[in-house]
């Protein structure tokens, strides 16, 4: 009977050694000299990982700025970054690791709606404040909202309400969509359709839509499908590497020369625009959570020039979201006067602070920041920034595009 052996003692000894080290760290973390630790979860692998790289740069910039000017409550701040792998289970494991192993005081991040709907219900168990800086599903500040979860970035309902206004002005009546086959793509289409029909009851939402799998490589069948349907307007909610791939293949098939309007809800991401350069078609409407050239205020001017100096490219919306996330925690910790996670959580509710895209407030009712997207038509390529600029350009007022708390389905 040779089949049984010492399976676990090695685990135990190894664990004990590691955990002693970790345990010591935990015991001393209450001392004032130790840094404030913020755990971040972004997509660092796979085709959208360029979003994670921008987020990392944004956080690094914020952390360095804060530490150079005296830190938070006199303490340095640092961040620990984990990869979400754009999977909910990986992100949940990452969050547990950050809280229990890395002993962070607060959490931030999340790039995908699908990941966010998995993570957010678990956040109350972790008992750490969580600021979402990218994932856009309305649910996480709607029916899934909870005490610990906040979002500073534009969500789907804010963005598609703005998109519907643009769509209404184009005069196009028959609309269809191409979006990724998960929560984000389907919800973008649903919210856009509802808002657009409110503005113009005559609009027709076509049955024939295209939802290719996220990470799909060949979009040709889906592009042909939509061109065949001969719509007046197409809402495109693809993002990341998918959007880059899609636009290149669509260019080849003459998609943008057709007789319909094209609205890309996330086309204004500089991650996408700089990858495409002049392959990005001119004269189409693109939306973005934040556009570096849309805000003429002191905070934004300093942010953009610091970012340009350091990284040689303009900050994307994800870089701005991550940068602002750190700044929001600074404001909340200073308001709370402590790094106790519960105190930070309380301080975030109703908090108002200066962000590059203006003054932001986390509503107490659903923890969503009152903020609007920027939309514009793609224009000439800028030599300085390496991306097409937006002209005309419109930044929507958060108060006008954010639904009332009573409509979100959140009760806090």
């Amino acid at each position, binding site marked *: 009977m040779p089949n049984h052996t010492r399976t*676990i003692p090695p685990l135990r000894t190894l664990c004990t050694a590691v955990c002693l080290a970790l345990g010591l760290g935990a015991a001393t973390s209450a001392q004032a000299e130790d840094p404030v630790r913020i755990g971040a979860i972004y997509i660092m692998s796979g085709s959208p990982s360029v979003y994670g790289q921008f987020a990392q740069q944004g956080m690094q910039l914020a952390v360095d700025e804060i530490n150079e000017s005296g830190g938070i409550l006199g303490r340095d701040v640092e961040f620990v970054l984990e990869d979400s792998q754009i999977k909910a289970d990986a992100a949940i494991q990452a969050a547990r690791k950050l809280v229990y192993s890395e002993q962070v005081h607060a959490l931030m991040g999340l790039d995908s709606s699908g990941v966010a*709907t998995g993570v957010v219900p678990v956040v109350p168990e972790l008992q750490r404040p969580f600021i979402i800086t990218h994932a856009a599903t309305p649910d996480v500040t709607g029916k899934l909202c909870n005490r610990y979860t906040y979002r500073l970035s534009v969500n789907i309902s804010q963005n598609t309400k703005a998109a519907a206004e643009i769509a209404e002005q184009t005069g196009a009546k028959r609309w269809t969509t191409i979006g990724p086959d998960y929560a984000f793509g389907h919800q973008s289409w649903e919210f856009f359709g509802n808002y657009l029909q409110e503005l113009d009851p005559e609009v027709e939402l076509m049955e024939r839509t295209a939802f290719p799998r996220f990470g799909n490589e060949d979009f040709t069948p889906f592009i042909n499908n939509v061109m065949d349907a001969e719509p007046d307007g197409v809402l495109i909610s693809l993002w990341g590497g998918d959007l880059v791939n899609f636009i290149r293949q669509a260019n080849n098939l003459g998609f943008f020369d057709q007789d319909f309007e094209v609205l890309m809800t996330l086309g204004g991401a500089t991650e996408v625009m700089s990858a495409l350069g002049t392959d990005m078609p001119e004269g189409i409407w693109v939306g973005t959570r934040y556009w570096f050239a849309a805000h003429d205020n002191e905070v934004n001017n300093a942010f953009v020039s610091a970012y340009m100096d350091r990284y040689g490219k303009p900050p994307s919306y994800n870089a701005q979201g991550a940068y602002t996330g750190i700044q929001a925690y600074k404001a909340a910790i200073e308001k709370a006067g402590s790094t106790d996670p519960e105190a930070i959580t309380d301080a975030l509710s109703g908090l108002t602070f200066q962000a590059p895209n203006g003054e932001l407030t986390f509503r107490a009712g659903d923890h969503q920041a009152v903020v609007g997207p920027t939309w514009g038509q793609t224009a000439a390529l800028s030599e300085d920034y390496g991306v097409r600029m937006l002209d005309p350009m419109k930044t929507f007022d958060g108060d006008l595009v954010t639904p009332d708390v009573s409509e979100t389905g959140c009760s806090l």
Partner: protein
Amino acid sequence: MTTRLMIFGVLGLVLAALFLLPYGVSYFYIFVATEILIMGLFAASFNLVFGYTGMLSFGHAAFFGMGSYTTAMLLLHLQVPLVWTLLAAMFTSMLLAAVIGFFCVRLNEVYFAMLTLAFGMMVFAVAHQWRSVTNGSDGITGFPLTEFGLGLDLQLANPLVYYYVVLVVVVLAAALLYLVTRSPFGLILKAISENPERVSFCGLNERRFRLIAFIVAGLFAGLAGGLFAPFNRVASPDMIHWSHSAEAVLMTILGGSAYFLGPFFGAMVFVLLETWITSYTDHWMLFLGIILALMVMFFRRGILGTVLDRVLRR
């Protein structure tokens, strides 16, 4: 007799260590240990097909996924006690394994591997595209954790409690699985893996034994999946993807397929290495690839297998 005593002694120590583990390690390692136990059961169930019966399956995650979805959906829609969801998970994955196995055991070697891959990916594609039922690629999330059932007052949302639930269930399941491998049935499986023709000559229906092995393996994989969904709070298509099947293969190769506890040991090495290496580098898969290549080339018996071979030969 002394070897047997020693083995029971070691086994007792292992169980005691597992039971006392939460008192000796930091809170985070409760999650790590829970994952090791569940993945160990998954790999061990795979090994019933691979190590004992000689069939390399690349679709074993289908049963793990079936168990996960069954548990997640029952918790989401009906909020039944966990013990019933686990039984349901075992039942549904057993059914799935019966259907898939019915076809797959007709083929051998590479063709078997390819057909299990095809069926596994078919289940993946269904979970991915049947949005109205499975919630598509987002998977099933946000389900509540109910009571355990059987009149036990257990707070399943407490990771420590859940660790003990997993520990008890996995130890019981492993014991059952072990008894299967030591039974006459298990010995026939072993004979099939060594020489299928000879088994046929003995008048035994080789295909039927392989099918039963496949179904039993599917059932235990379903149990592992059923335990995993409440632990990770998600049931998603990723758990069905062939790369998840490959994880069971990797763990088994790492530990060694010739000994019953090899896959558990492999799961432990895999999860611990992943936890540690990913803290230092994003490129953990590179280390994994190198380790796997070395194992296949030089230590085909796995870590535990190689060590035990040495110890027992002495």
